[in-house]
């Protein structure tokens, strides 16, 4: 048996309005090179000027993971040649990062929690992008992204499965979203992950040779890439081979990892302190200013939701993982006054719809107020679970407000006993054979058989009959 040892390097694009060393905008999606200033282009003679906002964000992250904020941090140059790296070096932090050791807690599949130590987090600038598919036989360079601030968060190699790695990554994602220091959008590259993976015989203290899978850009791919890589390494060891230390890329189409060009690995980055930038000194009062600005973090919010809304530990964990979803839930719960019902709906129908339509909660067509209205109509017995579902679907397609939909589709629940009795009588007279069977059956079988009649009544009433009333009336009329 083998044990996997995994450490992650997570690159988070910080959502500062301007770049880390220039005044250019960091907005995503502009025309190529329209957001590249002289500084981002690495023009001769230009100099970097640090953006204080990036420090504030890094410090907030450090505080959120209970990390040491270093009083002195230093920007270094990481030297290598690449066309989308304008200066021929990346400004990063090597020996003295701004955020020192910290920790996060992840929840495992079995519900247990585990603390993962974070080695460090440091600030650096992003590179531009090489565009290989637009110009025939040539490569285009877009430097809009060059100089966008990144926070690189390095974990200790304390993760032991792809699932744990994803759980860790989700916690990091959740924290940066709560802090509002990044949009965390993995598809747009705002959050990227390098996975260091090795395997060793279970019980061994020695670490195996590791490989690094570069730039994995979704939770799902992180899980698959690590799993694939673990299996690949185990197979090599089983066959008596040796794992080669190298950088690999994950190909989601083939579900395999393969080595990057060997030249990339031979790099000696020749780190040295950037002489254009003075050491950064962070004093306690600045740290305190950042601490005061810290929002409620996922763990605190989870505890609060359990207490305030009376929901379960599990429900609270699911709801708080995504800050926007948690906010949505809280709005629905507060407006409707129905915590548990709100949790059921958000975790059930809402999440199912988001997953199916591949939407973020921010893009969800049903507003928190609309869902709250819907819950109100369930609570006052206007709707039953079936008609509520119909209204919910109509809200998604944008058919109007809750009460309008109820009215237009005639979905008001039939609670008038007389009207229900009339439908029940109809059903009894149309199904004499089933009625006879029912009456002949023993009482323990009857409850099961009753479902048929309930179904018929609901069908005839177009789902509007109050199910409890139907049950009651049927039971008394059939005896």
């Amino acid at each position: 048996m083998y044990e996997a040892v995994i450490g992650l390097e997570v690159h988070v694009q910080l959502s500062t309005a301007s770049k880390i060393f220039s005044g250019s905008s960091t907005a995503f999606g502009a025309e190529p090179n329209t957001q590249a200033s002289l500084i981002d282009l690495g023009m001769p003679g230009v100099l970097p000027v640090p953006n204080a906002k990036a420090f504030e964000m890094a410090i907030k992250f450090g505080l959120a993971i209970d990390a040491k904020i270093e009083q002195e941090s230093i920007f270094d140059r990481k030297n290598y040649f690449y066309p989308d790296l304008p200066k021929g070096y990346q400004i990063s932090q090597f020996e003295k990062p701004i955020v020192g050791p910290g920790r996060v807690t992840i929840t495992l599949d079995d519900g247990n929690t585990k603390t993962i130590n974070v080695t460090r987090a440091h600030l650096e600038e992003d590179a531009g992008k090489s565009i290989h598919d637009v110009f025939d036989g040539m490569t285009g360079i877009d430097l809009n992204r060059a100089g966008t601030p990144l926070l690189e968060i390095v974990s200790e190699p304390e993760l032991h499965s792809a699932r744990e790695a994803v759980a860790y990554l989700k916690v990091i994602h959740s924290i940066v979203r709560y802090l509002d220091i990044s949009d965390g959008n993995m598809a747009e590259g705002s959050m990227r992950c390098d996975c260091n993976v090795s395997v060793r015989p279970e019980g061994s203290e020695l670490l195996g040779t590791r490989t690094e899978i570069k730039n994995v850009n979704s939770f799902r791919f992180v899980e698959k890439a690590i799993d694939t890589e673990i299996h690949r390494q185990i197979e090599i060891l089983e066959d008596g081979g040796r794992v080669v230390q190298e950088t690999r890329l994950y190909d989601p189409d083939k579900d395999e990892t393969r080595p990057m060009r060997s030249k990339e690995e031979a790099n000696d980055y020749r780190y040295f302190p950037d002489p254009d930038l003075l050491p950064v000194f962070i004093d306690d009062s600045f740290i305190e200013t950042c601490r005061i600005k810290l929002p409620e973090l996922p763990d605190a919010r989870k505890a609060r939701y359990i207490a305030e809304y009376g929901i379960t530990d599990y429900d609270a964990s699911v709801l708080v993982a995504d800050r926007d979803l948690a906010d949505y839930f809280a709005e629905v719960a507060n407006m409707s006054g129905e915590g548990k019902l709100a949790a059921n709906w958000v975790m059930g129908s809402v999440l199912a719809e988001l997953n199916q339509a591949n939407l973020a909660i921010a893009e969800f067509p049903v507003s928190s107020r609309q869902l709250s209205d819907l819950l109100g109509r369930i609570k006052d017995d206007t709707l039953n679970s079936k008609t509520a579902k119909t209204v919910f679907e109509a809200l998604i397609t944008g058919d109007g407000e809750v009460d309008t939909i109820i009215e237009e589709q005639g979905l008001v629940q039939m609670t008038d006993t007389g009207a229900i009795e009339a439908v029940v009588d109809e059903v009894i007279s149309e199904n004499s054979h089933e009625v006879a069977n029912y009456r002949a059956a023993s009482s323990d079988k009857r409850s099961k058989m009753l479902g048929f009649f309930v179904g018929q009544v609901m069908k005839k009433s177009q789902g509007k009959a109050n199910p409890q009333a139907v049950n009651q009336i049927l039971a008394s009329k059939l005896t």
Partner: protein
Amino acid sequence: MSDITDLSFSELKKALQEKSLSSTEITLAFLERIESLNPELNTFITVTRDEAMRSAKNADTAISRGTATAYTGLPIAHKDLFCTDGVLTTCGSKILSNFVAPYDAHVVSRCKAAGLVSLGKLNMDEFAMGSSNENSYFGPVRNPWDTDRVPGGSSGGSAAAVAAKLTPLATGTDTGGSIRQPAAFTGTSGIKPTYGRVSRFGMIAYASSLDQGGLIAHTAEDLAHGLGLIAGHDSRDSTSAERSVPDYTEVLNGSLKGKVIGLPKQFFDDRLNNSMRDAMDMVLEVFKSLGASVVEISLDHVAEAIPAYYVIAPAEASSNLSRFDGVRFGYRADKPTNLLDLYERSRGEGFGSEVKRRILIGTYALSEGYYDAYYKKAQQIRRLIRDDFNHALASCDLIFGPTTPSTAFVIGEKISDPVSMYLEDIYTVATNMAGLPGGSFQAPMISGLPTGYQLTGPAFGESIILNAAHQIQMATDWHRLNPENF
């Protein structure tokens, strides 16, 4: 009245104020002199004649309307590593031989804002690497005192242009002596301010932690005027000092009575040749006659300055020069077959041999496994040198020494011997390592060639240096001597 071009920057300022000369007359006089003499001296890479005449005309209008500054209409020329918007900025290199800068360096924009008229861009050692100006892609600059000799470097074009009266004031940069050594070789005055005093924004970097912009002119008074224009905080340079700029001209006439001049024993040991020692003694006699006293001091680690410099500066240069890759600007190799070929040939063909040598040295010094032995060690030495200076300056006002070991050498004499070329900076480098201000001023001639003495002051003590040099210049005429043929 003498020729317009014989006048110093301060004298021209006075003439403009008195309206005895117009900016157009002044500008034209210098442009004509450049046209006639530059072919022989090769001091200018680019002459911006039309732009200069336009600025001069604007200056005259401003003067007549009373909207001029105290400096409107005065000429200057810039070392070709200061970026100038819309004007070729080559850094003396083939790799930037086609580079028209899209913006003005801080120094350039400050000069423009003051109304100075830029005559053009001055020749230099490629990327400011050199002590003779022989390393320029645009050919060597010749020393007006003897055109077979070098003018020093890397600001050789700046120094020679001032010495030959092609411009009364020139910007330069000094990383290890690149303002002071050519000033000494050409009989001019030069100041390298405290690191951080002048913004490096728009100065094409050689060694960022040592580079500092400064000036070359005929007199300390000229430098005082010029420095007031270019010094000061610039938010675009993180290493620029947030410290107010004094009026450097105000203190020029202060007495030297009671001032203490420190002589580092390491600069006056038996390696100093006799004629240079005599020249220095003559300067010291003047200091004493003006009431200053002389004490011996020690800079214990100064001997290590050159080796440490030749680790730190190339290390920073190797990284600073990475951006010249043929991708976005500058020289690009013809028909590259792939990315590596583009890099290798653009850089291989674009850089000269001294630049390549320093990139190689610097790359090696920063390599894994060598970093601690070279770069880190050099930084430790640097701290010791800085401590030496600060300690010495606690017991004296200024540190005095020769600027160079000898007078200007013959073109070609040292070009194949890099170590002897590097030793040219033996007296100047330590000042850069300590980040302190230094100036070189005219000392007595030796065999018909100029020499210079160097003053190093405490951090932000430029006015102390300029005051002392001005007092010496008021009492002597070494700074008034002109090269015979120019």
